[in-house]
């Protein structure tokens, strides 16, 4: 599973962080960081994160 975030779209809403805290985090400057190849066990969380992104900037591939 690959997580792809369109950082041109991302506006640091952080909704993905609540849905999938093991994949997405906001750094000290409140900018998004994320794990691009999370464990398969996190798929449901990853899909939830993609659903709740206000900018729809997250894609789950593979």
């Amino acid at each position, binding site marked *: 599973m690959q997580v792809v975030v369109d950082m041109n779209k991302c506006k640091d809403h952080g*909704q993905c*962080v609540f849905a999938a805290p093991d994949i997405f985090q*906001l750094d000290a*400057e409140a900018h998004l960081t994320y794990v691009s190849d999370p464990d398969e066990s996190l798929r449901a969380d990853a899909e939830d994160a993609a*659903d709740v992104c*206000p900018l729809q900037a997250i894609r789950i591939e593979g």
Partner: protein
Amino acid sequence: MSGTRTRRVVVAGASMGGLRSAEQLRAAGWTEAITVVGAEPHMPYNRPPLSKEILAGKASFDSLALTPKASTADVEWRLGAAVASADLNRRRLVLDDGEEVAFDGLVAATGVRARRLHCPGPTVGRHTVRTVDDARALVDALGPGSRVAVVGAGFIGCEVAATAVGLGAARVTVVDPEPLPMLRPLGEPLARELLRRHAERGVRFALGHGVTGFAGADRVTGVVLGDGTTLSADVVVEAVGSVPNTDWLDGNGLDLADGVLTDRHLRAGGLPHVVAVGDVARFPNARYDGVPRRVEHWSIPTDTARHAARALAAHLAGGAPDPTPFAPLPTFWSDQHDFRLQSFGAPALGMADIRVLEGDLTGDTVVGYHDGGTLVGVVALGGPATAGAAARHRAQLVRQPLPTA
């Protein structure tokens, strides 16, 4: 084998609520047919950018498209046809092109339409912002030098006003009978600060008066206010709320007083084969007082679709709904000018006790709303760190014990 037939769930409404319903039906184990019926000719798209990035020319219309999950590859999309009527007992819909569609389960996800002002005057030059077609028309009308009157100082009105100023409009005036913008969702202290920030960035306000008419012959040239004055305008944007699309459900004995009244599993009229999702659903939230409300936040279609799809799929499989209470944490945001509003929880339930939790109102700030001394909602206002600031209080709002049912 004879005697078997494919059963079908029809999702009425092809916006985000309709898409999420189809996806969540698949996730809940529904493997039989799904048809999504949509009045607009477009596949589901994301609406928030319509009043902001799209209007500002910073994002393309193509970028709005939502990407359906692979699980919905076999879903039938029946677009460009609105549902005209439904017979919930006979389990049939009639579309506005005359086609009949039979269903075993129904998801009502028809959303809302922009409310219009019904006062005298021309209609040409008056806009709303709900659909992609609305936004296209407004993009064409707005530009440097235009004089814009925005009727309604809510989310959409404030966003459109900010965008219009950014586009170089000659004058942008927001009209509302309330004394402050976004007063109901924000309360007085933040609404007053919002007014200040808009004014500082060039938005004018005509508050305390409603609109009684529109000036002009063939096309609008101004807005007539309740005090008798006329505000000249080339472009009028009506941002005066919404009307739930429920006409098609008339005659089925449902409570449609403000959207589709549901039980705690999003089921309408006590019917286990009919659920409502998204803006059109008036549902009780077990996190709060259990009073059914319609909630037009962007997060609600996704939240309601998941719970409703599980209940419907369970019924169609011969089971009972998951007893887990439906208790979504409300959240909203709004981007205006160079600042953002970000909320979690239910500020509306804590308007009698509003406290500044972080910063001060004229800078980056977080405001808390309390009921009986307990924090029930927060709104942050400020720059790029706003969402993170509000999020620091989210855990406390989630953690609070739910009232026992």
